[in-house]
């Protein structure tokens, strides 16, 4: 009896152990056997991989893993529709779509690559793209994509993901900031809603008036120190990518202006760490008179606070010194570890082509990165609601839009001091002059190390 019991226990233990460890080790096994398609753990429905190796027979019945950031469930119909069209045009290819929250993307992507189950097409912002490109994790599209595939995009947007002579992403969609403001609060403050600010100084003056008259804040700046400096006319890095150029008179002027804004209490204390979500929350709850974020955030205001939305007017965003606008670009990349580069590039190109992007722009307030889609009459068709107005205004700003990157490896580490010291400077722990000189020196030190490490 006892021995029977022991044997049962032993069998159960062994079975459980084997099943757990088999599950843990499956990634490595698959990698070593060179199986052409792998099912990502997030898509259990992914089909079984064909057994023949890609070199032996022409590829067919390929499954491409396509990962996007925060598009489901709002855009399920759109994405599924485009995937269906791609599959119809490319028989034998099945696309499995997985949508991930913004914060989970990097983590999930890395663990998948480490487990030998890299997805084939991935949606990343430019920062993440450059970090992964710097680690040799992405396919160089200048080397592997065709001229036809590359030529449909605006050149400056395509070059956002450039490192040396290589480009690691197809630009997808981007949003531009519009100046959205609460008409009721403007009137309460005695300001003319027909006269929104056209410069940053006017914006500050109006914010001071709003604070005095209504007790509410005028606006919440969402800081991006490296990009803000760049669009204020600071070169940030030399053309040969060897020297950081941050400590300039233009930079000092911009930094001092922001410091005064914070010290004088024109903006909330939390603007130090605020992002677009914070600004939108405050705007829709009527605590802030204006919203200076991407026009796409208007749809959230419309859903959550219809009364505020109906009171919203839209105007062009005052530009920084260069007259250019920061385009927060989303890209599609192909990981180097994808086993179907050609098909993956085709899918990435299809999802970002003129037709796909134009259709996408019609359902949400974003702008296309391709020349033909941007020229469509849709972007000049006027409407009376705030969202339509925002669309026209941002489309007009598009000609001056550009994403900001240094174009060198380890960009995040190089620019870290600019971010880290920015808060110290605003909190009075260093002067604007110290901020610029110390950040420049720290960034230069990291740049030298990066350049040395990469020959």
């Amino acid at each position, binding site marked *: 009896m006892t021995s029977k019991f022991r044997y049962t*226990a032993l069998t159960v233990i062994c079975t459980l152990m084997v099943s757990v460890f088999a599950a843990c080790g499956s990634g490595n096994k698959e990698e070593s056997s060179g199986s052409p398609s792998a099912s990502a753990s997030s898509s259990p429905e992914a089909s079984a991989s064909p057994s023949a190796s890609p070199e032996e027979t022409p590829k067919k019945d390929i499954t491409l893993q396509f990962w996007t950031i925060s598009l489901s469930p709002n855009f399920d119909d759109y994405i599924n529709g485009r995937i269906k069209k791609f599959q119809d045009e490319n028989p034998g290819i099945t696309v499995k779509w997985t949508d991930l929250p913004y914060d989970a993307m*990097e*983590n999930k992507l*890395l663990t998948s690559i480490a487990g030998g189950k890299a997805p084939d097409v991935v949606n990343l912002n430019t920062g993440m793209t450059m970090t*992964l490109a710097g680690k040799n994790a992405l396919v160089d599209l200048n080397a592997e994509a065709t001229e036809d595939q590359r030529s449909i995009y605006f050149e400056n947007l395509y070059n956002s993901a450039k490192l040396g002579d290589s480009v690691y992403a197809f630009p997808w969609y981007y949003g531009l900031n519009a100046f959205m403001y609460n008409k009721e609060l403007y009137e309460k403050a005695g300001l003319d809603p027909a006269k929104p600010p056209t410069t940053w100084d006017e914006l500050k003056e109006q914010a001071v008036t709003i604070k005095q008259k209504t007790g509410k804040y005028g606006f919440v700046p969402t800081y991006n120190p490296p990009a803000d400096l760049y669009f204020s006319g600071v070169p940030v890095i030399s053309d040969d990518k060897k020297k950081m150029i941050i400590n300039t008179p233009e930079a000092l002027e911009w930094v001092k202006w922001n410091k005064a804004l914070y010290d004088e209490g024109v903006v909330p204390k*939390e603007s130090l*760490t605020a992002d677009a979500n914070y600004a939108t929350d405050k705007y829709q709850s009527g605590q802030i008179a204006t919203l200076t974020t991407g026009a796409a955030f208007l749809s959230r205001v419309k859903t959550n606070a219809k009364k505020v939305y109906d009171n919203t007017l839209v105007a062009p965003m005052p530009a920084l010194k260069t007259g250019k606008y920061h385009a927060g670009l989303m890209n599609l990349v192909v990981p180097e570890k994808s086993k179907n580069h050609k098909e993956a590039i085709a899918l990435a190109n299809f999802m970002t082509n003129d037709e796909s992007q134009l259709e996408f722009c019609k359902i949400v307030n974003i702008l296309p990165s391709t020349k033909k889609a941007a020229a469509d009459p849709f972007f000049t068709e006027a409407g009376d609601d705030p969202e339509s107005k925002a669309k026209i205004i941002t489309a007009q700003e598009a000609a001056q839009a550009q994403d900001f990157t240094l174009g060198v490896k380890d960009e995040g580490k190089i620019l870290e001091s600019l971010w880290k010291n920015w*808060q110290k400077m605003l*909190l009075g722990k260093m002067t604007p002059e110290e901020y610029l000189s110390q950040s420049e020196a720290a960034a230069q030190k990291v740049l030298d190390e990066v350049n040395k490490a990469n020959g």
Partner: protein
Amino acid sequence: MFSNKLMRRQAGFAYLMLVPGCILLLAFTFYPIFRGLPLAFTDYSVVDTTHWTGWANFKRAFADGNFGLALQHSLFYLIVVPVLQILSILMAILVNNKLRFITFFRVAYFVPVVTSMVAAAIAWKWVYEEQGILNYFLLKFGILDQPVSFMVETRLALYGVMFVTIWKGLGYYMMIYLAGLQSIPSELQEAARIDGANWWRTIWHITIPLLMPFVLLCSLLSMMGAIQVFDEVFVMHGPLGDPAYTTLTTSIYSYKVAFQDFEFGYAATLGLLVSLIVMVLSIFMFRYTRKGGLTYYE
């Protein structure tokens, strides 16, 4: 003979029940630790080629100002341990009384424990803001002249998070102490009272010494939690320990190094160093709080 056989069967069944837990521990705790250790000696980045770097990561950690700062904050965070334990014991003593509606109070104090930390941290963030409810009351009662943002004021930010940790942990430790209090033989307390000991002396000389095994357990758990604090800091102050790195703790810094800089090898080194510190502190606590429970009277 019969009882021996029965006992063996019972023991076998007990081991069988332990198996699933052991397997999970082996697969998801010990195996990752075992595989993770060598990473501390490499420049593993997941995506790029990995090289053996020897002690380079350790040398870097000792010279890394940000790690030093994070360690300082994590060690400072330990002040939540005594505060949390003293308050929990007091609360447990309070809810150990036979009063009407006492179950309601016990449940009420336990509610923060079952609340999601992310949801709670977001709510506390709103409470602490310049336009938040805390400032509203402080201004209303004349305690402050000007609103203060507890989120961005560098001297207050870390205390703000500590308060959330205490608020969240109080009910949990209270329950453990309550179980402890109910296991104390009431004769001892009654005898003390008959001998003329007042409430405070009964607590100090009878209750607390008898609770010592529970104090050790709770302090240990709370110490490990405090040094490795992550969720509340991450939700309230982001991966850089805003404002100006004043809430940067070791777990937050390791996360940043791993998932933002892709330096998993270095992050493993930092994790290893923190584990060693936790181990040393645990041994220290065991040595100094060993005496307690009924052994106190032996």
